[in-house]
């Protein structure tokens, strides 16, 4: 790639960030929201719990999809990524009403699990390299148990497993649509930001969006560094 093209592409990325960041910074009436950190802590906690619970499932499903030719189940998991998540929330609502879970921690965590699982499965399935079949056949002919087999494959993914986990965590952290329906409380980042905007307009919600975006950049940077170190 020529030096000019490289400069142009870096400039394009800079424009992308500038368009998002600069206008809010020049906005005249900005005040910090009353409690910006409780919702961040809630979201981080719920996203961590959801990712920890969903990750083993993602590993199992991703392994069977990649190694045992079960790719046909992928559309049934991935469809949720192709629709507004309000629909996912509406579909979960009857179950959560029946279980008396609406607007509770379990509702928030379960919803985050539902929305982050497909991303984790896809990431694990593609992260298991093309050699997954040979390693699987080698291990099964040795009589290695299923769970040990999956564990060895997860080890073989190395840092790729951590990347998948982080992707799931970020997806859970960024969820709004489904939580608006089934998990308004405890307030998570998206819900809090939406409510701030509705009650106070841009004055307090814009600075909050900047805080959240900066956290997003930090985590995306972490993801990049991990992937880069992996080579």
């Amino acid at each position, binding site marked *: 790639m020529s030096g000019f093209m490289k400069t142009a592409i870096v400039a394009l990325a800079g424009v992308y960030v500038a368009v998002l960041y600069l206008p809010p910074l020049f906005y005249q009436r900005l005040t910090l929201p009353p409690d910006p950190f409780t919702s961040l802590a809630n979201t981080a906690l719920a996203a961590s719990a959801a990712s920890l619970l969903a990750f083993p499932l993602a590993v199992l499903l991703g392994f069977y999809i990649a190694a045992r030719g079960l790719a046909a189940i992928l559309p049934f998991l991935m469809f949720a990524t192709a629709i507004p998540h309000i629909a996912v929330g509406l579909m979960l609502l009857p179950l959560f009403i029946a279980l008396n879970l609406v607007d509770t921690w379990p509702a928030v965590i379960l919803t985050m699990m539902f929305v982050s699982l497909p991303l984790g499965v896809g990431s694990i399935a593609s992260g298991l390299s*093309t*050699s997954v*079949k*040979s*390693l699987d*056949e*080698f291990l*099964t*002919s*040795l*009589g*290695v148990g299923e769970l*040990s087999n999956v564990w*060895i494959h997860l*080890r*073989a993914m*190395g840092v790729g497993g951590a990347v998948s986990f982080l992707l799931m965590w970020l997806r859970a952290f960024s969820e709004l649509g489904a939580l608006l329906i089934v998990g308004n409380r405890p307030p998570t980042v998206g819900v809090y930001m939406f409510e701030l905007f509705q009650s106070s307009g841009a004055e307090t919600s814009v600075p909050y969006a900047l805080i959240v975006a900066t956290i997003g950049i930090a985590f995306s940077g972490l993801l990049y560094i991990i992937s880069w170190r992996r080579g």
Partner: protein
Amino acid sequence: MLVVEGLEVERRGLKLKVDRLVSSRVTVILGRNGSGKTTLLRTIAGYIKPRRGVITLNGRDITNLPPAERGVGYMPQHPVRLPFKPRDAIQYFAKVFKVNPEPVIDKMCLEPILRKERLSGGEGQILALAILLLRGAGLLLLDEPTTGLDFPNSVNFWNLVKSLNIPMVYVTHSPVEAASVGDEIYLVENGILKGPFENKLRNRIEEMVEELNLYKKMAGEVEWSRLD
């Protein structure tokens, strides 16, 4: 002893027919790319279900058994990369199989490999072979195990395989490899297995392999006249 009789396999447009295959020593299946060698090996290993035919190992019908219960060790075509340090890998599998790894380590002179942190492709294949031996499988199935290895590493692997004195079915597309390794050779052509043929080239091929090993010659281990 492995006996395959009346086997018919159809897979992705490839038809494979085996009237009879018997293996009690190092049996090489020689064939061109896409001839059905791997299909035959994977059928014996239990990963492909045959349309008809019987596979027995030491008198036991294994045709419909899952891979883990067949008592065979299978090394696939693509190199197996185990996510362990070499010594950890041996110890892990020794623990899984509840065996003492020392006899295999001694038999295969593995100690120099086990001391390493990372292995080359050839060393990785030797480690994978060692793990198959740890399992104590009645038959080894090796699918082009030297694919991607340089010549000296391939020769090392061939010598190791010959020294093990274990029944195995060894698939290759290389006549040199077939003649170097095999006690008997079968040929797969157009989906039909022909043979067995006695390996009459063995002694000659060993000399030829030695002759062809330019790495050794040019490194000065063997006399080689240099152009000045």
